[in-house]
């Protein structure tokens, strides 16, 4: 009996091990453009592979010569959905996609990836990675992707997913400028208000005090419409929210140009 139990446990472990490895059938890096040298590819593949096994979370980099769908988001989502990426029954993972000709990038997340790499997490990734993309340093970009992904996965593993708000430089400068200028303006207007009490001898241009009570009569009143103008401004879109891919699955993600 004891022998039977031991055999069953060993069999179960073997089956589980097969299941785990079966979830990571795809390579971590599919660099169709050839951004990485063979050596770099090998090094970073090993790094990403280690991370995905450590956290049971698929982490992938894919580059294409040009968009395989009509935009980077759809391309990244389709590659993720139709090529068996993702770990476990929830297909947890993240895919970093680059379309070389269009100079577009996109991070597609799925399953627990949508929580671990939430809006702020993706903004953090973009802030760290996009500068390297702009410089054409794809090795550093993918390496930084691995570093940041590991950092965020570790935080999630400890029960505290990264959720620090990320702001654009423009927003930060706006807040700082407001914090510097608004107090000065407030103080200036309050001082002007007080100064008005120091000089009360000012002309009175109106004669409302001398209007005969009830003397105002309106004999004629007409409002004629002349014309209209309509201005439209594009909404600032945050594409890091949830969306549905062509396969019908709900992805998270964020992307842009570099």
């Amino acid at each position, binding site marked *: 009996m004891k022998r039977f139990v031991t055999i069953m446990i060993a069999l179960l472990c073997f089956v589980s091990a097969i299941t785990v490895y079966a979830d990571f059938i795809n390579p971590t890096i599919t660099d169709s453009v050839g951004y990485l040298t063979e050596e770099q590819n090998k090094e970073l593949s090993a790094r990403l592979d280690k991370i995905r096994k450590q956290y049971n979370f698929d982490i992938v980099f894919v580059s294409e010569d040009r968009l395989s769908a009509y935009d980077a988001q759809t391309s990244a989502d389709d590659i993720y959905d139709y090529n068996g990426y993702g770990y476990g029954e929830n297909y947890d993972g993240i895919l970093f996609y680059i379309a070389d000709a269009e100079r577009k990038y996109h991070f597609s997340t799925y399953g627990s990836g949508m929580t671990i790499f939430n809006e702020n997490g993706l903004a953090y990734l973009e802030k760290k990675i996009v500068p390297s993309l702009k410089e054409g340093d794809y090795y550093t970009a993918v390496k930084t992707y691995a570093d940041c992904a590991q950092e965020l996965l570790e935080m999630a593993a400890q029960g505290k997913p990264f959720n620090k708000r990320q702001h654009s430089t423009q927003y930060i400068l706006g807040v700082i400028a407001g914090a510097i200028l608004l107090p000065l303006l407030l103080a200036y207007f309050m001082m002007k208000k*007080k100064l008005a009490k120091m000089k009360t001898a000012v002309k*009175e241009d109106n*004669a409302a005090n001398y209007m*005969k009570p009830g003397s105002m009569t309106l004999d004629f009143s*007409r409002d004629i*419409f002349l014309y209209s103008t309509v*201005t439209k401004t594009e909404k600032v879109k945050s594409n890091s929210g949830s969306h549905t891919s062509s396969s019908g699955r709900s992805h998270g993600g964020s992307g842009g140009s570099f």
Partner: protein
Amino acid sequence: MDTVQNYKCPCCGASLVFQNESLHCDSCGNNFELDAMRQIEDVGSQMQGESKYDWEHYEPRSYEGGEGAALASYTCPSCGAEITGDDTMGSTVCPYCGDAAVIKGQFEGTLRPDYIIPFKTDKKAAMAAFEDDFKNAPFLPDEFKIKKKIEEMTGVYVPFWMFDCDCNAAITYGAQRVTSWSDSNYNYTKTDYYRLFRSGSVGFTNIPVDGSKKADDAYMEAVEPFRYEDAVEFNGAYLSGYMADKYDVSAEESIERANERVTNSTVSVFRETTDGYAAVIPESTKISFSGGKIRYSLLPVWMLNIKYMNNTYKFAVNGQTGKVVGEYPIDNRKKWRYFAKIAGVAYIAAAVIAYFLLH
């Protein structure tokens, strides 16, 4: 024979061209409904035109019989003010410049006022009103409280022209109404432009205009309003114990200021009938009236000159209502200290808000 109607663009004044069932402006690109343009032409032609302010001529009056016997004329050699007072008035100072060397002379008996509002606030009450106002002046130098030298507070009947009119008004306003909405991709702002026509009538009574060159117009308008229901027929006896200036700005010279105030108030009161618009700007105003009345009145004002650091600071107190106006010296250190205090508190608040906005 039919004539060709040429419509001008209400926005830029360029000629409009009939195009696709509407009138198009090549200059600014706007389109206008033909019916709207017809209405604007019809109504606008009635509303346009020059304003006509028709005031009756004012004929100066002289003192009658022995009415001026108890009065004397006083001249200030420093500022040239000519003041009327009672004949028994002892040493006095000029209410306008504070000079004490006022010279007594012969009363001429000309320029008799029609009405007078007698003083209701006595000297003690006027001084108390000034002290109250003075305590609330925020940036007053501390030394001013100690070193100020208050000259005599003098009760002066200041000459004013009083204007009455019942005017017809035709006013055109440009107005805008703004609506906003959005869809999944864009925010939209629609601005509808209108032309508003208003006409009607409104009456004014006793609009005062300062008739003395020596009395600063800003002070005399700031010390308003006066309650004219307290006015009585002029009698020289009311001058006893007070000084009275006589006008040296004629009624004709004061009309322009009266017209300005009538126009401003009329535009303002008719604007109240244009609710529901985001912006209403007057484009044309036609005011017309005839037989506008002008009267010469003396209104009560306490004048106070304070000498401090080689400067004279002037104050006026309404002798009927006790309202105080003037100009105080400013302690710049106090002013900037206040600025720094407010800015400091605001910076702390701004730092806290910025922290929450950035984290």
